[in-house]
């Protein structure tokens, strides 16, 4: 059940292609896409709010976020399983086909792999049925070559020999094998985009990498475009070219994978990284922000992270920050990185410790106004732990 070794080098190719990916045309793109779920008298759940994200052809893009950040909703919007409240979905630069027939044509190009392989396969049907079904629905695969098609599919997900697996039922397969069947089912219609929604979170630790390497191999060998949704920033760093971080329905930061983890710009990304398990951490964690994701029924005004943000300024609670480029290809939606704003200079001076020289200083686009612009990257996570006020951030579940 291993992907061959060369599958495991998303990074040989990944690192090289990172810059190339940025210039590559977007295969699938969301523009200012918003999804609100009506919640009766209480208004609406602002699940995804004005998110723009492009999936470059042949690239792996990861969306990282906590539960309730809207990352799965975004995946379902990309899959057209949900209709956006507003915004656009573009496939090859054209509006994505919609409507009955259009949905089917779209699904042939964009397929989704769901989180839980224990629930996403029908227990009363065998593997053959699961793989044949999409072929029939989409009118693919002539009867004569069906066996060959099925065998090829199973081989692509490293379930070999195929004849041993075709007759099996989901309960006869391990979790990893089930997820491979689910991936094979998505591959059956020969899609160009694979949307993988937490494909490994339900699997045992030791078999997760097998699935991640399988996805990396699909990209490397077949040029598959992949959206990888996860809450595990370390696995996103491993697999993806680009990481987009979501918080409370909005995109807060996006950059090449290594930049996000090594030089996180947005305070939320920094919080996420400081909380992630890391055996190499030299000293105990000091979390740079407390509390939990806000209720999306009544999201906080301005920047949605401001109630938890150690660097929050007056403006943060008033206006949502515009995305700003902090380094080439590295975008952060934070007032600290936004172009000059009158309200900021005063507040920052009193709010934050002295900025130390940072790598950002080397970036000529950021040179001007550096005295007043805080450089988040090197801010120490120095906020003192407050023992008593934790509950302030840790809000009740909202009933």
């Amino acid at each position: 059940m291993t992907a061959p070794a060369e599958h495991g080098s998303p990074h040989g190719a990944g690192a090289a292609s990172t810059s190339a990916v940025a210039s590559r045309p977007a295969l699938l793109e969301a523009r200012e896409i918003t999804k609100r779920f009506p919640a009766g008298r209480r208004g609406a759940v602002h699940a995804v709010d004005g998110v723009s994200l492009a999936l470059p052809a042949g690239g792996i893009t990861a969306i990282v976020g906590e539960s309730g950040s809207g990352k799965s909703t975004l995946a379902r919007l990309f899959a057209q399983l949900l209709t956006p409240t507003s915004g656009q979905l573009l496939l090859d630069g054209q509006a994505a086909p919609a409507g009955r027939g259009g949905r089917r044509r779209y699904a042939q190009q964009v397929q989704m792999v769901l989180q839980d392989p224990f629930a996403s396969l029908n227990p009363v049907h065998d593997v053959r049925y699961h793989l044949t079904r999409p072929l029939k629905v989409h009118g693919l695969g002539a009867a004569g070559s069906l066996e060959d098609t099925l065998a090829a599919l199973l081989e692509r997900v490293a379930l070999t020999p195929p004849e041993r697996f075709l007759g099996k039922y989901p309960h006869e397969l391990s979790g990893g094998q089930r997820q491979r069947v689910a991936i094979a089912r998505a591959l059956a219609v020969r899609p160009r985009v694979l949307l993988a929604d937490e494909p490994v979170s339900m699997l045992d630790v030791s078999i997760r990498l097998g699935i991640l390497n399988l996805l990396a191999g699909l990209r490397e060998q077949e040029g598959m475009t992949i959206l990888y949704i996860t809450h595990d920033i370390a696995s996103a760093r491993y697999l993806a070219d680009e990481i987009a971080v979501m918080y409370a329905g909005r995109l807060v930061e996006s950059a090449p994978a290594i930049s996000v983890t090594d030089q996180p710009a947005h305070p939320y990304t920094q919080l996420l990284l400081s909380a992630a398990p890391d055996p190499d951490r030299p000293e105990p964690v000091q979390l740079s922000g407390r509390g939990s994701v806000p209720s999306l029924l009544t999201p906080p005004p301005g920047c949605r992270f401001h109630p938890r943000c150690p660097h929050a300024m007056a403006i943060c609670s008033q206006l949502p920050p515009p995305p700003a480029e902090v380094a080439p290809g590295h975008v952060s939606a934070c007032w600290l990185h936004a172009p000059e704003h009158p309200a900021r200079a005063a507040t920052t001076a009193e709010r934050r410790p002295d900025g130390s020289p940072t790598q950002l200083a080397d970036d000529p686009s950021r040179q001007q106004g550096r005295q007043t612009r805080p450089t988040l990257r090197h801010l120490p996570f120095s906020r003192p732990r407050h023992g008593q006020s934790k509950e302030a951030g840790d809000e009740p579940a909202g009933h």
Partner: protein
Amino acid sequence: MTGQDAPGRGGGPLIEVRGLRVDYGLGPDAVHAVIDADLTLASGTVIGLAGESGSGKSTLAYAITRLLRAPGIITGGQVLLYGGTGPVPEEAARAGKEAAQAGEPAQAGTIDLLAADERQLRGLRWSRIAVVMQSAMHALNPVVTIGAQLTDVLQAHRLKMDKTDRRQRAAFLLEMVGISADNLRRYPHQLSGGMRQRVMIAMALALEPAVVIMDEPTTALDVVTQREILTELADLQRQLSFAVLFITHDLSLLVELADSIAVMYAGRLLEQAAAGDLYRAPRHPYTLGLLRSFPPLHGARKPLTGIPGSPPDLRTPPPGCPFHPRCGYAMDICRTEMPAAFGLGVGGGRSAACWLHDGAHEVPAELAVPGPGGPSPGAVTETRASAGTGAETGTRAETGTRAETGTRAETGTRAETGTRAETGTRAETGTGIDSGAGPETKAGAQPAAAPLTAAMPPGAAAAPDTTGTLR
């Protein structure tokens, strides 16, 4: 509560699990969920139990607390709960029980939890051993307020407390885990997942237990909430100095959190070591594979392989070592015989149940990385202490089959190893890793491992990739 400052913390053994076996079902169809588990939890330390789903880690915890439900059956072994800070004669057990009954922590006495009756257990549970269940969503009663659930415990165990005292204590407990006392009147559904888990921890600590068993307490939580709770837990543990058995599938988390770690696979404890040693110098191929399954947050991105195959079905476990079908170093003997947990290192530091470490095989370099070092330069962590008997093993250990070992280990330590191997003793593992050279090693606590089969030529079927830097 980090692995780095592990050595030197903690007191004597508090809970000692010896040869514990748990089955699900009876007769030939029984599934062996825990097989010959030996584990020692020292007072005031955090021991991590890592394993994948179905490895038997939760079963082990439930067996220790006697909370196992049918069809789970404990078929053998002992779980000794020491009353004081160290082992005391079993005769005092009754006295200890009486004390526990009265609601006071037992100061002396040793009880075999597996032999204890319901009355004894009732006295011990919660007041001496508390459990934090995996799912706080389901462990709290949805129709009873937080306050009532907290005072309920006190009412049952602290007979002298009156209503006001209980209320105050409950409020104090909530504040202790960072929740304001206003929440006493709330119902579980009104709290977020993180707060519910904090309430669970507060409840577990209500009677100031000596041990808290935590079964995946943060698995369902977001990473930031998880970190908040773990930081609080570490602080509380330092203040109140209770011992923790922390069960999780996330080995990378345990390295940060625990003093020592036991790795479980298919019902067996495959490796036990101090957290830092286990992370930097794993000895068992499964541990190595598991560590290589976690992509790092720093450094260059390198392809990782994880572990091929999937965990075995315990209904039809593979013969011999349960890991051999997935093991890159598997030898002939691995397919037929389960290795004993060979003690490694001076001072009862660590053990690994792998034939590679029986003293007769060449250990691949990646499984022989020198440890980060013991508390003193003289105490070399990595020395061969084989449980095997016979001169052959001894001489093999003397000659040193491993380059790194040879360079680091001093002759003196080697001699000691030799003696210990001969007497067939076994290093106590999983304790707080005392800095001494292991006076607490229990002679004869374990039967010596079966001698190597004669058919097994030394160095036969050497692991696929040895370094060739042998001495």
